[in-house]
């Protein structure tokens, strides 16, 4: 039987057919070097992607605040990653020009420097243009604003009237938060919207040095740059005011300012948090009301729940260390072992912050 007839003959190996064509893989954008100077992406595809992100989360979220928190979370995980890439690229291009002086491992340790880095390096790498302005707030010493007059992601989005107060730039605020978080600056970015001039500002209230002093005693303090350790505990302070929902359109999250020692040592510290959670979870399943969303009138009309909580606080001091009821503000504190806290993920913090308290 002749094998020559047709097909591939394994004993003879590949045969030349005369005209050989070498197939080279076409270079796609995935094959390009990480250190490329320019990289173009289509604004259209970016806006279609962002559109889907918003509308998907809009369908899943129950409230606008939840939608903003979801967008914020998406941005946060991008922020922690984009910092590495942007600083790698930036340092690479610096090395090309600065005659061999290596600054590969440069790390920003001052607030102004990292904010400048965000506006002048991260912003162009994300949006093809630097942010328009970086301003220090006149109200608070530790508040800065990154201002973008024409945000790329919002280019084609017009927020309808029924969603007034929603700011899709919560996503970008999340990116900023992620960057600052992974560089060990404590922050609480807010995206605010000044409609008249179509300006978006990202407020970054950084915690005051006094606040970081109280937390103190982190191993990271030994590092030269770690003026402020990473976020240890979030406490949730919600203003009992109806207006609050529209004024601050960001999820309620403020870094804790105090970490008082527990006066009572009956429980082990680890089990306290579990107690704390289960305590409120069982409570919230009964009524399902949020303290933070009740308006002030409601509170004054029904003073009973406040008394109840206070009583509870007295009888059970181990669960809740202090529950301060000023007229406008509810703050809850909790003591947790510092070692335990270090192993906490962001999810744990959010769980801690967002579960419902019943009055």
């Amino acid at each position, binding site marked *: 039987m002749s094998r020559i007839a047709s097909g591939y003959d394994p004993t003879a190996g590949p045969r030349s057919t005369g005209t050989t064509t070498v197939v080279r893989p076409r270079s796609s954008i995935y094959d390009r070097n990480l250190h490329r100077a320019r990289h173009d992406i289509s604004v259209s595809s970016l*806006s279609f992607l*962002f559109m889907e992100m918003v509308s998907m989360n809009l369908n899943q979220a129950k409230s606008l605040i939840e939608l903003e928190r979801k967008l914020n979370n998406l941005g946060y995980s991008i922020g922690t990653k984009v910092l590495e890439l942007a600083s790698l690229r930036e340092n690479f291009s610096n090395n090309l020009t600065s005659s061999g002086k290596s600054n590969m491992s440069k790390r920003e340790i001052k607030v102004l420097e990292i904010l400048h880095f965000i506006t002048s390096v991260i912003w162009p790498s994300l949006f093809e243009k630097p942010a328009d302005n970086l301003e220090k707030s006149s109200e608070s010493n530790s508040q800065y604003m990154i201002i973008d007059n024409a945000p790329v992601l919002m280019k084609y989005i*017009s927020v309808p*009237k029924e969603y007034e107060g929603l700011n899709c730039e919560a996503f970008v605020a999340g990116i900023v938060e992620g960057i600052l978080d992974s560089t060990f600056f404590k922050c609480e970015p807010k995206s605010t919207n000044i409609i008249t001039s179509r300006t978006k500002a990202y407020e970054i209230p950084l915690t005051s040095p006094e606040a970081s002093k109280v937390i103190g005693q982190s191993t990271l303090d030994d590092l030269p740059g770690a003026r402020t350790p990473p976020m240890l505990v979030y406490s949730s302070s919600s203003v009992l005011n109806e207006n609050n929902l529209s004024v601050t359109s960001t999820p309620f999250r403020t870094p804790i300012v105090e970490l008082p020692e527990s006066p009572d040592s009956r429980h082990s510290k680890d089990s306290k948090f579990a107690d704390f959670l289960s305590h409120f979870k069982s409570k919230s399943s009964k009524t399902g009301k949020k303290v933070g969303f009740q308006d002030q009138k409601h509170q004054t009309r029904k003073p009973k729940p406040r008394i109840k909580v206070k009583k509870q606080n007295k009888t059970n001091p181990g669960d809740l260390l202090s529950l301060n009821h000023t007229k406008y503000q509810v703050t809850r504190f909790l003591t947790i072992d510092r070692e335990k806290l270090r192993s906490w993920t962001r999810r744990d913090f959010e769980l801690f912050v967002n579960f419902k308290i019943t009055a």
Partner: protein
Amino acid sequence: MLYSIYITSRSGSLLYQKDFKTINSPITKQKSNDYLVIASTLHGVHAIASKLTPPDAVHNYQKAKTLANSNRTGLREIATSQFKIFMNQTVTGIKIIVFASPDMDETKFAAVYDKIYEHYCNYVLKNPFYQLDMPIRCQLFDMHLNSVVAGCNV
């Protein structure tokens, strides 16, 4: 001069309607229900016109490999002594209808139509809060449409 702009969906329902204030505009304000009637009537007339197109002409178009939804066979223009109505259909069957002054011709309309279509694609379709086949309520779209009309009505 542009007097008003209508956008209808593929099924003939009115998605967007706006009258523009101009001097001596022959277009009078209608009840909101009448706008719906006008839109669906024009939609129907467009469909009838494409049915009435002689089969030879249709055959020629098909041989030229034009898109099925292209505006070759439908109604394009209605002219009265006071104003003209231009209409054009996009690939998805959305119709953009423009009421204009009699001095408007096809080439001028084509330029306006392109701009309106572009703004529709950008500011309506890329808006996460817009659902297809629902009335268009986008602030940015309004803004850009106004600038198109302002550029035309100078």
